[in-house]
């Protein structure tokens, strides 16, 4: 007996999953809010050590990638397969650039002695070490999501190429894109909170 497809159900499921991701990061944002209100000055001082250029560039990159992912969805609805593949390729490329930037940025910061439990932070005021610990955890967790999202989109792209995902059945692509947008959403909040607190 064949079961009929339920795209709306699948999308509902994806949204529910996105809620859980939101709450996962929610715990970290909660801590951020609490510690910011306790150590405003230390947070500002620590925020000044961040590389705003990297942050801004990565924000632009993620926004672009998100736009490309949305384009892919529009394209598949119109049955423009080449455009789907190009957009997904662009999204994944952006993900890769984003991670590469992160790598550069973290190397720079770590070489300056900012990492959890580092001697430099241990010597500084308590609020700063809290800031950097939160920063590494939040951004690290986000980076993990970028990695997962990128992999997911590559997998989807392969299925598009094979014709498994097509204009008549593209909920997989839609869900993949939704996940990617969430990754973008989280970054939209990380960026001002960690880079622009001056």
């Amino acid at each position, binding site marked *: 007996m064949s079961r009929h497809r339920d795209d709306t159900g699948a999308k*509902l499921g994806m949204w529910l999953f996105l809620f859980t991701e939101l709450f996962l990061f929610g715990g970290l944002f909660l801590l951020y809010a609490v510690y910011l209100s306790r150590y405003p000055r230390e947070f500002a001082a620590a925020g000044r050590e961040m590389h705003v250029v990297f942050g801004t560039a990565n924000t632009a990159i993620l926004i672009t990638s998100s736009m490309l992912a949305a384009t892919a969805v529009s394209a598949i609805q119109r049955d423009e397969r080449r455009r789907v593949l190009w957009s997904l390729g662009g999204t994944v490329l952006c993900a890769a650039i984003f991670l590469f930037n992160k790598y550069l940025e973290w190397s720079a910061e770590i070489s300056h002695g900012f990492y959890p439990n580092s001697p430099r932070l241990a010597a500084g005021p308590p609020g700063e070490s809290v800031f950097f610990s939160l920063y590494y955890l939040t951004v690290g967790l986000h980076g993990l999501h970028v990695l997962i999202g990128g992999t997911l989109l590559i997998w989807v792209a392969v299925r598009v190429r094979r014709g498994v995902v097509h204009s008549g059945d593209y909920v997989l692509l839609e869900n993949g894109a939704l996940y990617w947008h969430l990754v973008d959403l989280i970054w939209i*909040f990380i*960026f001002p909170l960690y880079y622009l607190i001056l």
Partner: protein
Amino acid sequence: MTHEQTPHILSYGKLTLVWLTLLALTALTVWVAHHNVGIGHVWGSLAIACLKSGLVIAFFMHMKYEGRLLRWLLFTALAILAIFIGFTFFDVLYR
């Protein structure tokens, strides 16, 4: 159960427009941060971030074209998250 309603297709033009707005808002938030020192601007940057995420959710994520159910669920989830964070401040602020 699955009456296939024809899905709403976003035009590329609209997507580009949203994209440009998002980039502009990013520039704005960086600019504000550099010209407006102080804790008060935390709220400013958060407001901009909320605006940006609203755009992403409404257009990129198609929420504008979804049914009532999803919108309600999203609203509920966000409200609960806000409560989790907000209620913690009953402790943190008055300790």
